[in-house]
């Protein structure tokens, strides 16, 4: 009996997870743009690196939320915590400091 209940719970969980996964993935792929002709690789901007590295763990913060000095400290921590390569972290820091908030 317990085994049957467990199977039922797992089944419903898998169905629900699959449902959200399928809907989300389906909508996302449907909205995706067709692949363009392969362009030569370009150097990523600080804004692009910010979008690449930061959003995978948390909602993006606005540059104005911290001062330039605070961003320097925070990016030092994030570089270590998220293992962001140094040059990428520096580009992200420049991007954040450009529009950093005042004191």
């Amino acid at each position, binding site marked *: 009996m317990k085994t049957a209940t467990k199977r039922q719970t797992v089944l419903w969980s898998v169905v629900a997870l699959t449902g*959200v996964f399928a*809907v989300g993935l389906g909508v*996302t792929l449907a909205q995706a743009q067709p692949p363009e002709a392969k362009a030569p690789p370009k150097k990523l901007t600080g804004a692009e690196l910010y979008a690449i590295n930061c959003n*995978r763990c948390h*909602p993006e913060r606005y540059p104005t939320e911290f001062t330039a000095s605070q961003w320097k*400290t925070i990016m030092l921590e994030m*570089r270590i915590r998220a*293992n962001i*390569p140094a*040059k990428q972290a520096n580009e992200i820091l420049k991007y954040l400091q450009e529009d950093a908030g005042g004191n």
Partner: protein
Amino acid sequence: MFTMKKPTRILSTAAACYILGLALPQTAAAVSDDDFNALKSTVEKMSQQMQDFQKTHQSDQQQIQDLQQKLGETQSLATNAVEKADAVALAQANPPRSALHNFTMVGDAEVQYGQAKGQFGTFSLADFAPIFLFRANDNILFEAGFDITLQNGQATGTTAQDNSYTHDSGSSTSVSMSFAQLDYLINDYATSVSGYMLLPLGTYSERGAGWLNKIPDSPLPVDFLPGAGVGTQLRGGVPVGESGQSISYAAYVVNGPSSTDGTANATTFDGDGNTVPNLDLGGNVGIQNSGNNANLNSQPSFGGRLGWFFPLKPHTDVELGVSGQSGHWSGSYLWSALVFDAAIHITPNFEIKGEYINTWQETSDLGSIQPNGWYVQTSYKLAGLDLDAPIVNDLELVERYDYANNALGSTSDRFTTGVIYYITNTLLLEGDYEWYKNRGLNAAGLPVSQFIVQLSYGF
């Protein structure tokens, strides 16, 4: 002869002088009044002109003095301007710093309302978790995180009826240190971390803060892993190409887990007499009750993580990781862990991530046991539907399934479904319902299904 001519010449000269003498006075006396007046007028004009010239000269002198004074003032202003410009340049090069210029506080705070099945609903301050960052210079950072929570106190009094009093009373505040580590950036590819460190066993321990975790509580199997440990670590990220791809690594040595009761038995008893796992994942911090510095084990534990992050474009990426730890937990008995983690993002709106955790614990009474579990969590932001509905666009659906087997006769699986409303980018209102299924010998003591609403703020 000669004598006769000399007087003659003398006389001739005298006569000429006489005649001239008569003639000259007659010439002087010939200047008329008109001539004199004209001459006088000329002299007066010349005198007037001379006075005018003197006045002009005096005026010119005054103008020259004024100009010289103005020139001096201008030079002074120019000098001050240069000095000010130099001061500004100096100030820009060395901006004024307050005592707290490189001190920053970040973190998160949570407030919950929860109702577990069969119990009263209640509000609770779930957590206030500040992280203090101090940047000594470009290469040195000290960071420390704390968890401050409020909970009911346990009464110690007695009642007249039965001399027992078990009702909660009063409140107590608990402050626990989540981590406190000193980071030194050796170069672009290596950072030394020392102290009480968050351990990179999987990704949850380092990315599980309240406002990062989209569900109010932690996945069940992460309880099988130590979240932090005292030791030292070398870690870093190495870029691969120019697309943002990177390989990350971490290698560490820590004191490792220990035994609650000092034996290598699989279980022990808590203060209420309940059977609980004997493995102590959170202790062994280096300083014993006696004050002596000593590891509770004969050897430290070693561990690490290797990760691969592959972004296809901003907000669309894959991350895979494998991590593990091994060392003595009691005497020569080993405790080891192996964790696989994975995360996929497709656009800013869709995420799926999960971990598989397996641990091995050698015990003196049950042999080798394997507490293990896994979880998978998926979420979708409705902003991806491109609906013209502001509130809907601020919603995110989230689901999680997690499973844990403690290898001591109990298993739990849980399904959680919820929704997040992003009031701002860092202020989240989360509502979830969790269906628990607990089985085994100690199932009665495990959590039950519950409804949770949480307000979470990241700062």
